[in-house]
Structures are given as structure tokens and as C-alpha cells.
């Protein structure tokens, strides 16, 4: 199990790099779109699709960034009461919490899929960019699926901690 986990984690590290790349691109495009729209609007050549582009980039960067935020422990919550628990129970509560997160995210993914299928089937096109809305609704679907994946691997890690490597061999 240890070796399998290590391989999975190598894969996740590579995945993380790809996600980081797209987060950076999305933020750059988002900022530039808003900046350019300020200039064009004040020069009386409003480009209506710029605002839309910025908004869609925001959808994508937050969804992709959510998995990264989990990995970097950057999801704010109230940990004070949990940390008052004795170590063994606390570890159990932390793992339980991750299972609950997987349950909730799975709900988001499952219903996100329904929504995604709906906009693809009806062939919805965005108002200004004229792109299929499926590209936008895919954001939550992809982002939350990846986040779920990260959490599942982290739960496995709770059960097979790194220190046990030698015993496993």
C-alpha cells in the first residue's frame, strides 16, 4: 500500500503543477481583461466580452485553486475546539472531517454534472463571448473532482502514515 501511495502522490505532485499553471494563466487573463476594459470603456470603445471573460476566468481559478488550497492547508475554518481534544480522538475527528468533505464535494460534483449536461444538451452559448457555456460549467466539475481526489489520498495517508514505510517492506 505504501508503494502504491507513493506512486499516487508522485502523480498528484505532477497534477498539482499542471493545476498551478492554469491557476496562474486564469488570474493573469482575469486581471488583464479588467484592466483593458477600463481603458477601452473610457476611450468609448467598450468591448463587452472582456468582463465576461474575466468572470469565467474567476470561476476557473477558484475551482482549480480549491484543490491546491486544500493541499496547502489554506481553507479557513475554526480549529480551536477540535484542537482541545486528546490527540487520538483529534486525529479521528480530522479524518472523519475529511470523509464528510468528500461526501459534500461528491454532492457538488454529482449535481455539477447534471448542470453541465444540461447546458451542453441545450447548447447554451454565453451572451458576449459566444462560447458554449459547457466550458464554464466544467470549471466546478473539474475543480471539485480534483479536490475530492486530493482529499481521498490524504485520508489514505491518515491510515498509512509515512513512518510505516520500513515495516511495509
Amino acid at each position, binding site marked *: 500500500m505504501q508503494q502504491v501511495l507513493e506512486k499516487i502522490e508522485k502523480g498528484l505532485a505532477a497534477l498539482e503543477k499542471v493545476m498551478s499553471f492554469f491557476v*496562474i494563466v486564469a488570474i493573469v487573463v482575469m486581471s488583464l481583461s479588467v484592466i483593458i476594459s477600463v481603458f477601452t470603456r473610457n476611450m468609448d470603445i467598450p468591448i463587452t466580452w472582456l468582463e465576461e471573460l474575466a468572470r469565467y476566468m474567476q470561476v476557473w481559478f477558484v475551482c482549480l485553486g480549491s484543490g491546491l488550497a486544500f493541499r496547502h492547508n489554506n481553507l479557513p475554518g475554526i480549529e480551536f475546539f477540535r484542537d482541545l481534544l486528546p490527540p487520538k480522538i483529534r486525529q479521528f475527528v480530522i479524518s472523519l472531517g475529511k470523509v464528510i468533505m468528500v461526501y459534500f464535494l461528491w454532492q457538488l460534483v454529482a449535481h455539477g454534472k447534471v448542470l453541465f449536461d444540461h447546458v451542453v444538451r441545450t447548447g447554451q452559448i454565453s451572451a458576449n463571448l459566444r462560447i458554449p457555456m459547457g466550458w464554464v460549467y466544467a470549471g466546478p466539475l473539474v475543480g471539485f473532482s480534483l479536490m475530492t481526489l486530493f482529499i481521498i489520498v490524504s485520508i489514505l495517508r491518515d491510515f498509512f502514515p509515512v513512518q510505516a514505510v520500513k515495516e511495509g517492506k
Partner: protein
Amino acid sequence: MALIVIAVFVLALLIGLPMFIVLGLTCLAYFLLNDISPLMIVQRMFVGLDGFVTMAVPLFILAGNLMNTGGALDRLVKFANVVVGHVRGGLAQVNVLGSMFFAGISGAATADVAALGPLEVKAMTDSGYEKDFATALTVASATLGPLIPPSLHMVIYGVTVSQSIGALFMAGVVPGILLGLAMMVQVDYFAKKYNFPKGSRPSLKLLAKEFIRAIGPLGLPAIIVLGIFTGFFTPTEAAAMACLYAFIIGKFVYKELTWRNLPKVFLDTGIICAGSMLIVAISNCFSWVIAIENIPQIVTEFLLSITSNKYILLLLINIGLLILGCFMEGVSAIIITAPILVPAVMALGVDPIHFGLIMNLNITLGLLTPPMGLSLFIASSFTKLPVTRIARKTMPFFLMMVGLLLIFTFVPEITMFLPNLLTK
């Protein structure tokens, strides 16, 4: 049924789940119990993520990060040093003034502690200040961050209760400056009492030189405020222009931003923002549930049943928010309480812009109080001082700020003077 939903909320909160999961589970429980499809959650979250006004949050954070990496920090501190460094307790005054300057490029108190803190504490302890005091002052002065524009708390509040973010920014200006000045007076008192060291008086030439060096970051809040004030751009656009401005200064004037360190600035911003933006997105669903269930009205009636005296109620709300701030970080606290409390205080005739400042300052003060004061923990992580020791030393400043909070609460004119100019 309502009890089950509340129980889910409280349990999820207590076991330390991320805030967006807590709010999400609460909505999910509500929908399942009421036979509403959970599809609503995804739909409303999407609307939240797809918002143009909320974009001010990531853009302001990006602008602050670009400024920091671009070398603004060092220049702001140096300028503060030539302005007040030569008086008794000079470096302590630099700490406060530096935070006021920094508040103009960053919208969050914790960013102030993390970025300026190590620098300020080292400078102060090197010249003979007690480390406890230096750390406590750093934590206390960071409170100015969310008051002086730009302010993330104000953006979140404005988005949550649909109020003008421009007016909210304006509302923070006078209280922010007053709070800073009051802190400087307090520092001066300590400086004379404990005979703090003082630096040498700089020449006028040096003063001018450092001012010119720091003029870039110093000018940013002015550009934001004036831009919104004149209607040249919206808050989101102001945030984007702040990014452009920070980029140009960091890249071409100070030349400390390089193509190599830029990707990291963007990525760090993305990761930090994703956490907060998820809360903002899910709040779109949460506040819908609150509105459907008529909770604001129930709370209003409950509050009015205690007393119909506006001042007593505001005092009670202040106490409640201060306690909440001890446990919950700002974005979540505002998102949960603003939609419930704002209709109640509006029924009492309190201006929602004025209340935005009250709520913001309250929640920010929570950063200084154990057990959950985030600023204390950040400061403790780099000074290696126990949180309780820093908190004890912060007390005099905390009490002064609570006093000012009460004055701001009961004298709305201090806060409303600038926003009123905006609307006239």
C-alpha cells in the same frame, strides 16, 4: 426540522471543517429536509463565482502581493522612519505609521502582521525595545489594515448585503486615521513613561529623498479612493488598476519584480483567494436560505423584544460581534452575520454603511484576542513568544480601540462624513 439544520451547522463548525464546507453542509441539510434539489447549491455557488463585484477580492490581494514582492514594503518603512523615527519611541511610532501606509496597499490585517511584522519586531528589539512590546504593538497596529482602503472586509460586507463598496471604503478613511493617531498618542505616553530610545533627526534632504522613493506605494490608496470617488472606475476596476500600478512600479521603477518571481506571486494569490472565494460563493446559497426562512425578521423581532433603544441594541450587537470575532476569521464572520443583522439595524434607523464600519472594526479586533486571534498566532510563529503573553501586552491598545469603536458606534458622523460627500 430547523433544529436539525442548526445542529448540522454547529457540529460541522465545532469539528473544525473548512468554513465553506460548514456552510455548504448546512444548506444541503436544509434542502434535503425541505425536498429541494441540491442542484440549487451548485447553481447558486456558480452565480457567486461568476460575480464581477466579488472579483475585487482576488484583485486587491494580487495588488498587495505585487507591491510586497516589488519592494514597496522596505520603502514604506524607511519613509515612516524618516518621518517619526527621531522622536522618543521613534521605532514604535514607525511601527504604527508603517502599518497605516501598508494598510493602503493591503486590505487585510493578517497580511500586515505577516509581511511587516518580522521586519518591525527585529528593528525594534535590535535598538533595545522589549520583544513582548514590539510584537504586541505590531499586532495592534495591523488592525488599521481593514479600515484604511482598500479593505477586503468592506468588499465582502458590500457584496453580502448589496451596499456600495465605494461608500464603505470612504467610511473607513476617517476612523482608520483617527485610530492610527490615537495609537501614536498612546505609544508616545509609553515612550515617555519607559524612556524608549530615539533615533537621530534626518535632514530635510533625506526626508524628501525617502518620500520620493516611497511615493509609488503611498499614492495607491489615493488613486483607488479618487478613482472610485470620481466614478472613473468601479471598485473591481480600481482593484485591477491597482494591480497594473503595482506591476509597473515593481517591475520598471523599483525593478524588484522579475519574470522569475512573478508566477509565484500569481500562484500564491490564487491559493489564498480560492479559500476565501469558496466561502463567498457558498454564502450566495447560505444567505438565500436565511432570507427564505425569514431569519432576519425573527432576529429583528427578538432584538426589539429585548429593548427598542437603538444605542443599547448597538452595544449588545458590538459585544456579540467582539465575542464572535474571537473565534471566527473575518470573511466567514461577516458572511454569516451581515445578512442577519443588517436588516435588523436598518429597522432601527442605523445606516448600513455606518454599520459596515462597526462590524468590520469589531471583527478585526477579534484578531487580537485569544483563543482564535489569527494575528496573535502569526506573530507568535515568528517571534516564538507564547500567544497569551503577546495578548496581555496588546491589552492597552485593545482597550483603547474598543473605546474608539464605541465612539464610532454612537457618533455616526465621524464615519459617515466622507461617504455622505460621495453620495451628494
